Every structure is written in structure tokens, then in C-alpha cells.
């Protein structure tokens, strides 16, 4: 295993296969928890912790878990780590627990985690899986931070809770950005920006449909139906 190889596993999550902007996974927390930088950072780190732990454990167990009950086993492992993270946050960062609410429990069904378990950790060594978890986790966190920075600075005129006097005093904030419609709007615009920068090279092959969906392998029915309709 060359060093170069490990490096690329770590780095691909940052941009080339960024889970949020390129693979379009984990849209639900991306939209729901990016109203403030604090919340987004918390969500990003919590997800990263679960992702790394579950990747390691699933990779360790990959020879032990029978193929037929693969998905339920992954789900149990992931939900277990989510609950652990949930309890730790509730105990030590109660404010964050309040902010994230149900979305913390919903990390369980974040497609990124099950997707990485299915596509990477279930097939690769522990070390590589851990690196993949770190890379994807950082990519996810950076994406959330980018989203939340735009939304909080422009929408509320503050950054991580610190008011930016220039924006507030001159009334330059656009309140709707921290509301639900603003989330969808900013997400769309940021994807467009990434498309522009990369000249659409990354996203073309991953246009949002079955290829980008982690459950693709477990739901042949759903995808073939869609393909037939096309």
C-alpha cells in the first residue's frame, strides 16, 4: 500500500468526492442544521465521529458479518454510535444538543454513513476505512461550514454567534436565508459554484439519481423502475 494511495483516500472526500456538493448525500442535515455556524460545526463533527467509528468497526467485522444481514448489521452499528455520540453531547454540550434536536438522532439515516459502510468499509482494510471516514467527515464538515457561513453571515449578520456590526447596522442582512427556503436556495447556488469551478467535470457522472444513492445496491427495484420510465 503506497503512501500516495492512502493520501488520495484521505483527500478525495474534500473536493473530488465531496459528499455534500458532489455526491449530494446527507442533504437533510446539510439543509436543516446550517442556520448557524455553531450548529453546523457540531453536526459536522458529530457525523464525522460516527462515520470514523462505524467505518472502523464495520471494516473489522467485514469478514464476520454474513452478506444476507449486512445492511441490518450496519444499521445497528451506526445507530449504536449515533446514540453514544448523542448521549455524550447531551452530557457535555447541552446547548448543542438543544440546537440539533432530532437531527442528531437522524445521523443514523444519513446516507453518507450507510453509503460509506456499504461502498468502502465493507470491502477495505481497517486503516483505509478509518482514513476514508476522516476524509469524508472533514469534507462533510467543511461543506456544512461553507453553507452555514453564507447563511449566518448574510442571513443573520453574525458569525458563530458574534454579531458583525457593519452588516447589522446598515441593514444588509437577508433574513430569509436562515429560514427554510434560504437553505434550499444557498445549497443550490453553492452546488452551481462548485460546478462552475470544476467545469462540471465531477458532477456529470454523478448526476443525482441511482448512481449517487448509497442504497442503490439494495434497491434494484426502485432504480430500475425509474430507468424504465426514462
Amino acid at each position, binding site marked *: 500500500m503506497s503512501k500516495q494511495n492512502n493520501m488520495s483516500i484521505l483527500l478525495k472526500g474534500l473536493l473530488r468526492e465531496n459528499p455534500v456538493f458532489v455526491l449530494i448525500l446527507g442533504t437533510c442535515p446539510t439543509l436543516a442544521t446550517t442556520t448557524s455556524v455553531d450548529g453546523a460545526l457540531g453536526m459536522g463533527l458529530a457525523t464525522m465521529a460516527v462515520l470514523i467509528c462505524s467505518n472502523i468497526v464495520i471494516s473489522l467485522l467485514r469478514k464476520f458479518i454474513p452478506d444476507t444481514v449486512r445492511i441490518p448489521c450496519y444499521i445497528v452499528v451506526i*445507530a449504536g454510535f449515533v446514540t453514544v455520540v448523542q448521549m455524550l453531547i447531551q452530557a457535555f454540550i447541552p446547548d448543542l444538543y438543544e440546537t440539533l434536536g432530532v437531527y442528531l438522532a437522524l445521523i443514523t439515516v444519513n446516507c453518507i454513513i450507510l453509503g460509506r459502510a456499504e461502498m468502502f468499509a465493507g470491502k477495505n482494510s481497517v486503516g483505509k476505512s478509518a482514513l476514508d471516514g476522516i476524509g469524508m467527515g472533514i469534507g462533510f464538515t467543511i461543506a456544512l461550514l461553507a453553507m452555514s457561513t453564507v447563511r449566518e453571515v448574510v442571513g443573520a449578520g453574525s458569525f458563530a454567534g458574534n454579531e458583525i456590526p457593519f452588516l447589522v447596522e446598515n441593514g444588509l442582512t437577508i433574513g*430569509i436565508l436562515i429560514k427554510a427556503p434560504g437553505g434550499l436556495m444557498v445549497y443550490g447556488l453553492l452546488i452551481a459554484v462548485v460546478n462552475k469551478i470544476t467545469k462540471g467535470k465531477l458532477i456529470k457522472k454523478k448526476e443525482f439519481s441511482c448512481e449517487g444513492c448509497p442504497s442503490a445496491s*439494495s434497491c434494484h427495484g426502485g432504480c*430500475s423502475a425509474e430507468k424504465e420510465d426514462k
Partner: protein
Amino acid sequence: MNMEMVKTLIIIIMSSVLVDNYVLSRFLGICPFLGVSKKVNQSVGMGVSVIFVMLVATAVTWPIQAYILNPLKMGYMQTIVFILVIAALVQFIEIFLKKFIPALHKSLGVYLPLITTNCAVLGVTINNITDYGVEDSNAFLFSMVSSLGCGLGFLFAMVLFSGMRSRIEESDVPESFKGLPVTLVAASFISMAFFGFAGIVENLLA
């Protein structure tokens, strides 16, 4: 059932369909919303399946929380138990439909596997416990009605959006916006429209 009760139930339904729409304001179930809502008939199929699964899931998870997890002081097992129950339920429903109601299976079956990892279903079961608790004598009724409302809201948003989407597909948008970005921007407008309902429901029946 008295008037007060009926009023409460109507408010629960109205607010979960219009104001706190699961897709457009809470962002739950956004993946299928963006992925499957390309054609109206697919949207209806997905929406109906989600309503069905939400109702069954709530009917099963609420008693589990009330009569098993809480008495055993194992509230922390909520997430694991719920997601497993939902996954098993979806499998079971699929097998059941295939065997006994093949016609329904043909129209809904393809969407069922997609629902396991639909965060709206897990979200609604957890939210019901958080919002209505398990102590109150009406909590189960409220939970079921709220599940129905959330499912209807999902269906409503999907169908509305699929109509809009078929037009976007044919329009000429800038290269970088093609595909998902323009879809998200369009979804943002629908969400904005739903945003306006907040005041209505608050004052309608108050």
C-alpha cells in the same frame, strides 16, 4: 369526541401539512423529494407509500416506547430499536403485499426499499414521542394524526414539485445550474410559498 379535540386534531394536520411541512421546512425526506419527484405518477406512488409506512411505523413504535423502553428505563435504545423496527416493517410490508395484494405491490413495491433510509419516517416516530410523550391519554391518537399529517404533507410537496419540475427539465438554464442546482432553487420557491402558511394556521382556528 368533543369540539376542542376535533379542533386540536385539525390544527395538528393543518400545521404538519402546511406550516411544518416535513420536506420543505424541516428538510426530512429530502432525498426522495429530489430523486423521485421527476414524474407525477412516481411522486404519488412514493408519497402514498410513505404515508402508509409512517402510519404503521408510528402504530408500532409508540407502544414499544410506552410499554417496553420506558418501563425498562431503556429510553436510550430508542434510535436503534426504531430504525430496526422500521427496516423490518418495510421488509414485512413488501413481502405481505407481494403475496396477498399483488396489484398494490406492483404500484407501490418499488418505492418501499427506498423508504428504510428515509429520514422522514424515523424522524416522525421520534418527533411524535418528543412532542406528545407517552403519558397523556390522547398521545397515541395525536401521534397517529400527526403521522398522517406529515405523510400527507410529504405527498403534497412531492406532487406539487413534480409538476414544477417537468417544466424545469425542458427549460434552458445556465450550464452550471443544470440538474440539481436549479431544482434546489425551484424547491426554495415552493418552500417560500409554504412559509406563508404559518400565520394562517395560527389564526385560522385560534
